[in-house]
């Protein structure tokens, strides 16, 4: 039976006027007009709401929405020795910007970045919460290296730190840990390095290990990425529709997260459209090995679109199972 999941982030603010308003709270923080307790309360209320919304819609494996994250890399980067946080840089081809970590000296572990966040989210969820981290190669690639002069060395050092984080997440109860590696799509020549680093980041991890690729083409990454200890491979088939052919042309022993819902455009996918895709994929891969998800994090969408899309996705999956898989 098909399952559903999300990729990572989720809109932080809702158009519902009664909902917790993190944007206001953070504005007040800038003006030093809110107590740390009140701000923390707003964060927690927002995370609980985001979890509730995903569970209400019926998503099987949820995330905490990365509500405390400004972007994919700084939450980790700011907890590393040897790294400073730099200026705004465009996040891939989006009108979204991240603060670029600047590597000043050898990187080493300072603090856990996401373990508390995971524990809080899981404690307030009935569904499993997936822990999501930037992959070591992407984390290195999105940083400005002023020390190593070697993407290889930086990536492998970061992998070791991510491994420490992942181990602690597993200890805290994570059943799914995902590494996002969008940068590898744009630098497929670095696949050996990236896979070595991913294996290192997942060393001695026993829960489900997920590797997710969004925005770019995965064509040159296959079949190499199938030859790993990764349990689940996730692919955005919206940004690059040809990624779907790549999936069809390879034999999966892993499970697959199929990112089919355009998480970067508000246009709602029709059920026919989705059924067509589900049909193709389930003919090739056993349904119980497939998770259906949006193409990437949902924070590129306004809140009401994100919810509408998720609802449509879960309903389409349910209807498809009933009509075509007789479940």
């Amino acid at each position, binding site marked *: 039976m098909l399952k559903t999941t999300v990729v990572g982030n989720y*809109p*932080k*603010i809702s*158009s519902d006027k009664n909902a917790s308003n993190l*944007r206001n709270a*953070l*504005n007040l923080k*800038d003006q030093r007009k809110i107590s740390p307790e009140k701000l923390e309360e707003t964060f927690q209320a927002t995370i609980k709401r985001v979890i509730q919304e995903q569970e209400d819609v019926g998503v099987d494996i949820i995330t905490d929405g990365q509500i405390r994250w*400004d*972007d994919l890399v700084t939450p980790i980067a700011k907890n590393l020795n040897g790294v400073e946080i730099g*200026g*705004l*840089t*465009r996040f891939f*081809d*989006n*009108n*979204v*910007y*991240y*603060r670029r970590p600047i590597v000043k000296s050898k990187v080493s572990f300072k603090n856990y970045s996401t373990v508390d966040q995971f524990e809080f989210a899981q404690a307030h969820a009935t569904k499993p919460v997936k822990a999501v981290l930037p992959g070591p190669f992407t984390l290195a690639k999105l940083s400005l290296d002023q020390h190593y002069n070697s993407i290889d060395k930086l990536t492998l050092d970061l992998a070791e730190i991510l491994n420490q984080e992942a181990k602690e997440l597993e200890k805290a109860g994570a059943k799914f840990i995902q590494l996002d590696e969008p940068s590898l799509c744009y630098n497929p020549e670095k696949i050996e390095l990236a896979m070595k680093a991913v294996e290192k980041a997942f060393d001695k991890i026993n829960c489900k290990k997920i590797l997710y690729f969004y925005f770019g083409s995965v064509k040159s990454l296959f079949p190499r990425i199938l030859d790993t200890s990764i349990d689940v491979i996730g692919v955005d088939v919206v940004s690059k529709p040809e990624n779907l052919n790549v999936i069809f042309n390879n034999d999966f022993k892993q499970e697959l997260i199929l990112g089919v819902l355009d998480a970067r*455009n*508000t*246009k709602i996918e029709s059920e026919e459209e989705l059924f067509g895709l589900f049909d193709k994929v389930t003919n090739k891969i056993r349904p119980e090995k497939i998770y259906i998800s949006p193409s990437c994090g949902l*924070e*590129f*969408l*306004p*809140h*009401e*679109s994100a919810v509408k899309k998720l609802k449509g996705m879960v309903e389409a999956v349910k209807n498809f199972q009933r009509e075509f898989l007789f479940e």
Partner: protein
Amino acid sequence: MLETTSVGSFPKPDYLIKARNQFAKGELSPEKLKELELQAIKEVIQMQEEVGIDILVHGEMERGDMTTYFAENWEGFAISSLVRSYGNRYYRKPVVVNPVKRPKPVTVEYYKYAQSLTKKPVKGMMTGPYTMCDWSFNEYYPNREALTLAFAEVIHQEAVDLEKAGARYIQIDEPAISTRPDELDLAIRAMKIVTNGLKAKTISHICYGDFSTIYPRILDLPVDILDLEFANSNFSNLDIFKKPKFTKMISIGVVDVHTHTIEDKETVKQNLKKALQVFDPEKVLVDPDCGLKTRTPEEAKAKLKVIVEAVKEVKQEFGLK
């Protein structure tokens, strides 16, 4: 030669922010809001005159955001809710739901007002077709190309009207252009439609991207002046433009618009001098990296002041007028 200018937006004064909020809640009339917008434009023109800027901007006091503003004034859009662009910054991302049309000029009246206040040239300011496409949700057109070219037509109409109203400089910002190097040809085709037949000097501001991926192809963008950021990366991107030689005029961003600290004059001078080894001084203009709207009015003014002072001294050292 080394004329000073600004990229476009200035911070809105508190009374205007308040008025815009009241207007949004229906507590203030459009006439009253406009009155305050014009007041803010007047203040920003005076400020630039006082600091000694050569080519002025009206500060975009009537605009909430560089794409949403046009979406609100053209036909074919639904306005979406807020999406986050970075940190705690959100914008209302337009949604194209019908064919894009321009029922009447959008920017001309504000341009005319600003120009009536000064003898110095004021730039006509627009957002480019590629960026309008890239920063909108598209629920109507079959693909990005169709949407971008549809935008190009209406922006061209606006540019022609600005020129008729007397604009000597028309800026068509394309901050999104470095996003997808594989779509640069589309952006160039669209700009060709926009600037077709214009006699005014045309400028395009591009930011937040890896220029190395679009250089030298970006020199084919049919505008006279490219406006690029340099301070944000501490001029490390200067090397990109050494080879092949930069053939257009260039407006060089010499102060960072996302820091509260005011750059010191010596640093700006040093950086500018470094840039003048790469670019022909005769073809250089100097400005901040990007719009100053996220700074406080005081910071914005202080940053412009540093630019004017640094340029003055560099000109003296180089024996330039």
